[in-house]
């Protein structure tokens, strides 16, 4: 594209200024600072501005000239109707407001810190709110069982449970191998080979299995739940459901919470079994321990209470993840930035809360399920 160069020329000694060329975005590219300087210099004593040589003028050219003239037309302006129309369009530009002072002050920062704390508190309350609503919905279902969202529940069972089986088994098995291998190296030094079964049995069923599954499910299903609810908020689908008389809590939140309550304990049992199998394989290689011996000893050294504790943790973690995911999903603001932010926060908060709940479990069950 050939563009006529914009130019500024002071003619005669009466200080009239002649402009020519293309005063457009394309014409001004790369020339704006130098032209601005020339304009400012020329405008010092100029009364007459001759724009008859200007071929094209767009909003950029017009607003640059308008600013040079101090937000008004010059006394004498030689320009045709089209150019004057352009200046009429930029005449909305008033004097520039003074730059606002920015940078947070120290009290401002302290206030910001407080606001964040309050924000975290209100998020916690929000999660409790989702729990309360789910409980109310359950009561409603007890009275009107025909409203039960069975299709949604079964879809969620499949998505959070069945389709998670391969990945949880794989991760569990590999962690079992690693744990068993590293422990065996140490135990061999002390000749305490048989204790590998105690370590794996108690460690995995009671602690590692549930936490591992919780992390996987929070990343897999929790994020998916938040994103789904969030997109439904962005596209106003939740509003559309509400106008059809379909309550979002009953149809969207409750099936997710129930599904995780059912699948999480099962996934914990499944993953813990895979991890113990992995540990057993590694023990066979490392310590020459036969499968038969391993399986015989396991129930004798690991009290059954540990399995129950593991399953109970599965229940608690599942509920935590689902409630957090739904809370953040329902609180997405209708824009993409908020969607991505809430999905991240959902996963991070879910995992953090799971660890907290795990600590509570550790204290509450400290007298249960220990051998001897």
């Amino acid at each position, binding site marked *: 594209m050939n563009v006529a160069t914009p130019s500024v020329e002071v003619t005669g000694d009466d200080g009239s200024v002649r402009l020519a060329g293309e005063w457009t975005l*394309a014409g001004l*590219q790369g020339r704006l600072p130098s032209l601005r300087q020339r304009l400012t210099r020329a405008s010092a004593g100029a009364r007459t501005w001759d724009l008859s040589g200007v071929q094209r003028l*767009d*909003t*950029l050219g017009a*607003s640059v000239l308008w600013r040079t003239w101090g937000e008004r037309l010059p006394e004498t302006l030689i320009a045709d109707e089209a150019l004057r129309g352009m200046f009429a*369009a930029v005449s909305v530009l008033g004097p520039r407001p003074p730059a606002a002072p920015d940078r947070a002050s120290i009290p401002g920062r302290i206030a910001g810190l407080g606001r964040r704390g309050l924000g975290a508190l209100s998020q916690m309350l929000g999660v409790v709110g989702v729990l309360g609503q789910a409980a109310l919905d359950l009561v409603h279902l007890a009275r009107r069982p025909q409203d039960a969202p069975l299709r949604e529940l079964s879809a969620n069972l499949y998505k959070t449970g069945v389709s998670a089986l391969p990945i949880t088994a794989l991760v569990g098995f590999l962690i079992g191998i690693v744990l068993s291998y590293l422990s065996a190296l140490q135990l061999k030094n002390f000749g305490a080979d048989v204790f590998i079964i105690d370590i794996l049995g108690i460690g995995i069923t009671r602690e590692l299995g549930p936490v591992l599954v919780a992390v996987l499910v929070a990343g897999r299903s929790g994020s998916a739940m938040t994103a789904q609810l969030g997109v439904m908020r962005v596209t106003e689908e939740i509003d559309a459901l509400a106008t059809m008389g379909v309550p979002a809590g009953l149809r969207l939140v409750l099936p997710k919470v129930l599904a995780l309550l059912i699948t999480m304990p099962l996934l914990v049992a499944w993953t813990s079994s895979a991890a113990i199998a992995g540990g057993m394989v590694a023990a066979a290689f490392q310590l020459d321990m036969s499968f038969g011996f391993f399986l015989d000893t396991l129930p004798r050294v690991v009290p059954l209470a540990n399995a129950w504790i593991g399953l109970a943790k599965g229940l608690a973690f599942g509920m935590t993840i689902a409630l957090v995911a739904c809370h953040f999903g329902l609180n997405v603001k209708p824009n993409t930035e908020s969607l991505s932010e809430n999905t991240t926060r959902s996963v991070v908060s879910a995992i953090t809360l799971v660890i907290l709940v795990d600590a509570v479990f550790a204290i509450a069950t400290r007298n249960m399920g220990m051998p001897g």
Partner: protein
Amino acid sequence: MKPVIEVSGLVTRFGRQTIHAGLDLAVLAGEVVALVGGSGSGKTTLLRQIVGLLRPASGEVKVLGQPVLSGDPLADRALRRRFGVLFQQGALFSALNVFENIAFPLRELRWLDRDTVRDLVMVKLAMVELEAQHAWLMPAELSGGMVKRVALARALALEPELLLLDEPTAGLDPDRSAAFVELIRRLRQQLGLTVVLVTHDLDTLAALATRVAVLGERRILAYGTLEHVMAQDHPFIRGFFALDRMERALARARS
């Protein structure tokens, strides 16, 4: 005059469904071409082909003398900066407020300073009759008509030579539609703009269009001045421009 848009032998397919079968269209510089056709006839799809969002199954699309999909990223980008697009649903960036939406293409140029960008955005807002305080609203807080106008302001941000508008006046009240018509007229006069617009609004069409293209049966059924198109004997054309309705619109446009 050289054509600004040249579409030749365009074929568009989605799976087994054919939307355009050998469609030809040429738009000359300075024209305002109105694209009309039934719902689902492929008007939006044709615009998407013209701006290079879709790749034709066969045929060629040239804009401003260059193929839209040249394969050279730099050339493609330079070409895209020379036209402005208004999407049917607005397609505003939901995470940015109105001001930032309009400023975005300007900042992408990387050579305009902050104050200049601010001035340009404010002028564009005034052009589409939005007030300065609307600049700080988020897209989700706008009415449907306001979304259209912000999207138009954004399409105008880079002072395009070619403007492609998908139903620009749908959702605007009659006053605003008239103001829109006035705005496009003025821009055309000042900047020599070429415009292709999809519209169902007979008033806008009668007031603005230098030529009308009727899309149907997977091709252009008729293309010419409004009088020429109205004289065609085709069931869709007769239905669309139900003559009495059209005469009223023409009378309004002339008054």
